[in-house]
């Protein structure tokens, strides 16, 4: 088995065995397969790319080709213990509504995203005057699907505004977990576990 991306591994570690989870933007199903095989989770997925869906179906996973902005609405309230949104929040039409939808269909949600206030981003803007292109945000500004760049601070504020509790937060740099000191500029990406 290939090693899970660190943000996905953290989610895998913190999901209750035997629970129900919806992975929104599940890609090739790596996390779903791990949840099923290691935690006996009843995992479902939504994925926009048909080739990814095909791979998921071949792995015996239940994945619906669809657009998270549009299709989450068809799931009933509280259908899942967890809704998972990995590295996708910044691509949503309205991230605030997406977060609300995640917490409508799931009791809890895991949300991960690249931190736009990482020092590399800051330096690209400050010294070069350019939109940053990095390992975690590798696409130029005119091609990127990331239409709502967000920082750790922004997300905490959004959660507070929406009355959403942050139960846990994890931060990563160089694909390794880091402590919470100075994460606003040190974290390349973050994972939050939130609930109402």
């Amino acid at each position, binding site marked *: 088995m290939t090693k899970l991306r660190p943000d996905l591994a953290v989610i895998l570690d913190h999901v209750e065995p035997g629970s129900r989870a919806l992975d929104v933007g599940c890609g090739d199903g790596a996390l779903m397969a791990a949840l099923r095989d290691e935690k006996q989770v009843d995992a479902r997925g939504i994925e926009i790319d*048909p080739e990814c869906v*095909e791979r998921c*179906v*071949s*792995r*015996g996973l*239940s994945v*619906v080709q*669809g657009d998270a902005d549009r299709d989450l609405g068809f799931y*009933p309230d509280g259908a899942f213990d967890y809704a998972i949104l990995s590295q996708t929040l910044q691509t949503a039409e309205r991230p605030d509504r997406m977060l609300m939808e995640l917490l409508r269909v799931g009791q809890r949600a895991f949300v991960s995203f690249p931190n736009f206030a990482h020092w590399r981003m800051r330096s690209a803007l400050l010294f070069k005057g350019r939109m940053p292109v990095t390992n975690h945000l590798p696409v130029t500004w005119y091609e990127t699907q990331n239409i709502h760049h967000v920082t750790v601070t922004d997300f905490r504020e959004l959660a507070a505004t929406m009355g959403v509790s942050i139960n846990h937060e994890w931060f990563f740099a160089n694909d390794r977990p880091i402590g919470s000191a100075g994460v606003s500029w040190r974290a390349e990406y973050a994972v939050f576990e939130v609930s109402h």
Partner: protein
Amino acid sequence: MNADTPLQSITLPDPLRLDNGRVLDSAVIAYETYGELTADKGNAILICHALTGDQHIASAHPATGKPGWWERMVGPGKPIDTNRFHVICANVIGSCMGSTGPASSALDGAPYAMRFPVITIRDMVRGLAALLDALGIEKLHAVVGGSMGGMQALSMAANFPDRAERVLAIATTARHSAQNIAFHEVGRQAIMADPAWNGGDYYATGASPGAGLSVARMAAHITYLSEEGLTEKFGRRLQDRDAKSFGFDADFQVESYLRHQGLAFTGRFDANSYLYITRAMDYFDLAEEHGGMLAEAFADTKARFCLISFDTDWLYPTAESRHVVHALNAAGAPVSFVELSAPYGHDSFLLDVPALDRVVKGFLG
């Protein structure tokens, strides 16, 4: 159509109760099987055929001699692998390939013709379930179908929720739309406008409503293809001539093709069966059977579902599959769905679409 062709069939021991309140006594179900059934009878896959399909899924058609209609999908080493699975395909009731239909003899010895009861998709599925009972197969590894076959697969999940572990419904819908019904009505009117139809009593007259049936098939055939596919295949090209004839001969290749399709169809299909089966499809509305809520139809099933649509299918477009998927989501059923890209329109499920093969194989496990 040839009554002398030996077909594998059983006569159902019990009367078949129908949605219209009547019963069909001593109904015959003709079927074919491929691949060995394991001792625990756990490897059976039921494949449901489409409107004009039949049980000859992976073996030559007895009337036309043509290869089975899904040979590219079913066979040893194929996506539905008969080295592993015992594949069953039965002719639906109402059809004309050995199962009881309007051309069959009623108790008085004469063909039913229009005395045959109007049947529904659910009635067809009741017939299939009775066949499985007779074969001693309690639980299917999967029920699979495209187009009307997909309707049967969904209907089986709704009405016999414990019967199949997996439900694979391709290029299908949970209800016939006004447009679907409209096209079928054109076909039925073409048949009934043919003087040889004779109120359905043509079996002994020596004439059959071939002209009407042929037009019905031509109109339907257009709905199975995409505009893009027709343009690519025929464009405005002329048939065996350099100039327009300024007449009503088949000047265009597409006309010639449709006429051929229509004519070939009359050789293998009964006009009354066409009336009854199109009616069954038009009556199909899985939500209506379950209090108007499609999600309710799937409330009791433990099956895993997979739906597949094609981007060029305008007969049962992707939105119809999504409608089913959303109902399954609401019912909490495990469902996969993918819209595949293929140029052939509705008929894509029968044609060379490698991604379809991969999804089918992957889903069946």
